[in-house]
């Protein structure tokens, strides 16, 4: 089990990013949180992409913007493929 505080201190987040990360994890059930923590534990560089994804997606959900969401999901696919090649 990965500890939230330990992870956050390792990620060296700015205050703003810390706030965003807190907001994201507040909304997640424990199991989802652990998946996220596990990913960040092994790939800390992913934090920027994850926070960007959260911010964009949040905006899309709030405004129920299907096109924006489609675009984000497209980016997600590309990122998974990119990761597979690396």
């Amino acid at each position, binding site marked *: 089990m990965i500890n939230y505080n330990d992870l956050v201190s390792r990620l060296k987040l700015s205050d703003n990013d810390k706030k965003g990360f807190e907001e994201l994890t507040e909304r997640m059930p424990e199991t989802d949180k652990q998946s996220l923590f596990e990913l960040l534990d092994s790939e800390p560089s992913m934090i920027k992409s994850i926070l960007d994804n*959260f911010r964009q997606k949040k905006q899309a959900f709030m405004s129920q913007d299907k096109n924006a969401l489609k675009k984000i999901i497209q980016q997600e696919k590309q990122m998974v493929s990119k990761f597979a090649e690396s």
Partner: protein
Amino acid sequence: MNKFSHEGLSQEKSTYPELERKLTDFQKFASEALGSENEVLAEEPVLDLSKVDPAKHEKTRGRHRKKTLISQVWKDISKACAGLAVAVAVNSATAQEIPKTAEQNKFLQESIGIKYGAPGDTTFTTYDRMGEIILEKRTQSWEDGSSYYQFTDERANPDKVLLKKYGIGGILKHNVRSVSKETARSDKNNNVPVSESQNEENYLRQIKHSSTGQEYVEEDLKTSHTTNSFDKKTKKLKTIRDESGHKKTIEFSVDGTHSGNVIIRFKDGAVGLPGTFTEKRADGKWDKIEIVKQNQTWKKDGNDKNFTSYSRDEKGWPVMEESIKFNDQGLVIERVNVRGEFTKQFPDSHPRLIDERYTYDYSPDGKLVTKRIYDRDGRLSGMEILFVDAPECHGLYVGIPQEAQEFVQ
């Protein structure tokens, strides 16, 4: 395709038709969105290890695991965003339904001259008998189910609006920021982004008060995840859970425990908790210090009604000093905070008197507290009205021009 659902939806439906419509729309949108995320996951082929070269087995499996994990995380983020959006829909449809009691309005109007409006009203003008704070207030809903108040300091910053965020029950969540009136007006979604500087006050303030006025607990909690238990008999804080749910036990004795009241005031690290402690310096900037271990002592001044707490870190450097005065009924009537500059280069320096003094006046029926905030020069800088007649105290912040100046961007 995922079926999005929200607990408690059926209850809301009958009461709020507008909410029902919004949520039905949203449900459709969220189902499609989460369904699209599932498609991303579905594109991930199931790994057939029999076809993988044993030499590359571990590496391949590890890579596959990470790919699946990333896809899963994207989906989890979508779910979190969906939850957030539902909270907004619920709040926006119900916020207008919360009336202020006639009694509260009457008291405010008669005793401190406030013209008090319902949430959504555009103007709210008040003045304090001791000063001349003139503010305009607006109340709007926030995306996570809380509300924020807009204040305009008509004298100092007529073009700026100070936003303060409150949670359900009037709990102050964030000192937000000052924005231009234009920005505040153009924010049609009630989705004003939270200021980066809000971390300066990233704690919740929760004030509870019994109906008899005999028990008073004030807690400054760093996050909403922090919980504590409080032993009413011994007047001691027993346990605290941090954001991760880890239990921390605090043991500190209060020398000369007061018969009717206990004040507990802490930010992370303020009362015996190792951690990072954010404090404001005399020059207005914010600093962080790390406290590994901290001791706190309490001292009576010969009068049972007055207490002073002294906090020092493990090396004996002064961290905070707080004086509290009680009235005959055992209620807090004044608090003075003395804060050090926390410069480790000067371990022998005495903390400087750099900030606030608070006074508390109680209404005759004991149901309402007027808190006044003074700056270091003794000038009134803000005022807060605290309703204490409800199980969850409702706090109404009615003016703080000094802060408005500090938060001007």
